[in-house]
């Protein structure tokens, strides 16, 4: 950091003068370089953050279709606004060094450390304090955002710690199966459909499960992501804020058609949703009567709707049954 001290000669030996002798004339130059770098960094960092937040920020995925999407967009923006100054600092320091201490610049010693750098208390304390504040700040920020966002759109398991405050919540069960998601609406008689339709301005309580292998329900624009495990009820919350279409993908490699395991859902006005749900309930009523009673996990044993793969009604996931070890096809129930 000094133009006049902390350097080595061509043989790599320490300079003839002692560190204490060198520090006195070095102080002015060192301070000058430091403040130059800090000033340049501060100006560029502010410009970068402001430009990012105003120009890029509103377009950062996953958008603002739901509360969790908005929250996550805000979180991503904050994280990037913290990261940008760090990036700018590295670039500014690098550029400053290249320009200031370039070899072609006559008479400028090489800044290769030495006692002045090793014992610079200000630099060391500043480095430790800055990185500690950054890491702890991000830890606290992330934790607080996870709590205030009712899980931030992530699966919280069967007993959510963070729940929304809304009094009106629409439960929707998501059933992963090789290789498609289907959805049940217990509020409307428990009908099951391949379409995911949601009302706007409504808090949704997803109950994500699977009836075979592990899948993962990822509604991208809703910013909801929850693993779908057989025999498990994984709950995730979000509140819809905008109408529109969204994409659902399985994000857990689940077999040959995993790549095709996606569908498109839509958020509609409450009246449109009500019309759709009511008509679908009526349309599927006879088939709904054949489904297992609505439960927080999809148990193929229930109501004999097991395809014959879980005949003992005790352990639907024993190896013998999972691997189809039942010889032939079982006799359908009378």
């Amino acid at each position: 950091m000094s133009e006049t001290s902390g350097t080595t000669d061509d043989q790599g030996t320490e300079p003839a003068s002692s560190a204490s002798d060198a520090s006195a004339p070095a102080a002015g130059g060192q301070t000058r370089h430091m403040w130059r770098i800090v000033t340049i960094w501060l100006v560029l960092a502010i410009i970068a953050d402001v430009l990012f937040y105003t120009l890029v920020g509103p377009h950062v995925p996953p958008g603002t279709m739901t509360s969790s999407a908005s929250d996550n967009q805000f979180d991503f923006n904050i994280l990037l606004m913290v990261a940008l100054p760090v990036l700018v600092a590295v670039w500014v320091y690098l550029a400053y060094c290249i320009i200031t201490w370039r070899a072609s610049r006559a008479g400028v010693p090489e800044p290769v450390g030495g006692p002045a750098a090793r014992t610079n208390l200000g630099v060391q304390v500043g480095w430790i304090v800055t990185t500690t504040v950054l890491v702890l700040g991000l830890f606290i920020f992330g934790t607080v955002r996870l709590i205030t966002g009712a899980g931030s759109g992530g699966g919280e398991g069967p007993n959510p710690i963070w729940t929304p405050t809304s009094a009106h919540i629409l439960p929707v069960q998501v059933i992963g199966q090789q290789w498609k998601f289907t959805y049940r609406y217990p509020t409307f008689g428990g009908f099951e459909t391949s379409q995911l339709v949601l009302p706007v301005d409504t808090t949704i309580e997803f109950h994500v499960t699977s009836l075979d292998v592990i899948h993962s329900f990822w509604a991208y624009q809703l910013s909801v992501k929850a693993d779908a495990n057989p025999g498990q009820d994984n709950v995730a919350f979000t509140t819809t804020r905008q109408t529109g279409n969204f994409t659902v993908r399985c994000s857990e490699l689940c077999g040959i058609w995993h790549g095709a395991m996606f569908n498109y859902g839509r958020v509609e006005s409450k009246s449109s949703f009500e019309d759709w749900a009511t008509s679908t309930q009526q349309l599927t009523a006879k088939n709904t009567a054949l489904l297992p009673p609505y439960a927080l996990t999809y148990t193929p044993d229930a109501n004999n709707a097991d395809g014959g793969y879980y005949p003992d009604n005790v352990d639907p996931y024993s190896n013998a049954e999972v691997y189809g070890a039942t010889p032939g096809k079982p006799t359908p129930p009378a």
Partner: protein
Amino acid sequence: MSFGGRLTAVLGLLVVVIGFAVWGVISFLLPQPSTVVFTASSPGAPIDMTVQTVPAIGFGFQPVWVSYLVQNQQGQWIHSTVWQLPAHTRINVTLDQYDSGSPLRNQNWGRVQGTIGGHALYNGKPFSYYDSNTGNNGVGHTFTVPALNLSVPLIGVNGNATNTCGAAPCTTNFAHNTMKFSFVTPGAGSYNWQCFVPCGGGYLYGNGGPMSTLGYMGGFLDVVA
């Protein structure tokens, strides 16, 4: 032989062995069923397809696997599940189901979805859903195109039937059920389809083997403009 010569011979042999191994892996992974092309007699005219499902294909590297077959427009049965269809065209499907059935793991697939009229014909009688838990038939397979929300349960032959077909292609002299339905192809694209009955007996959750091999219980509708 000099050291250089021996080294060259060993390296040459190694290259040959690796080449064979790579060729074997690639030839195992790459083969796909041939594409069966369907064209309309005139632009916009409907296309009739005849398809069958069999309990055992009877030939090939897995002769006991269940499978689909399709009849090309020359009347030949082709063991392929990749079908090329024109876009925005009505497809009339006649599907002969020669396999037996069982109760569905998920009765949602007992519902007819996405067909013209919202129903299909089961041996000439219209139906919109099928209770797989009663009777001796159950559902053997489904023909489902997830991206089109199209799904038709294929009702199994009676479990007490004695004249079941043992190898493809099956003829209508054997016990079978005939399902008929129609749908309209979407815009150009490749749309996967599959059976949603876990019929790969002996494999994890019944979804391995023929359920996970192109050409048996899943394929593509290659829709072209």
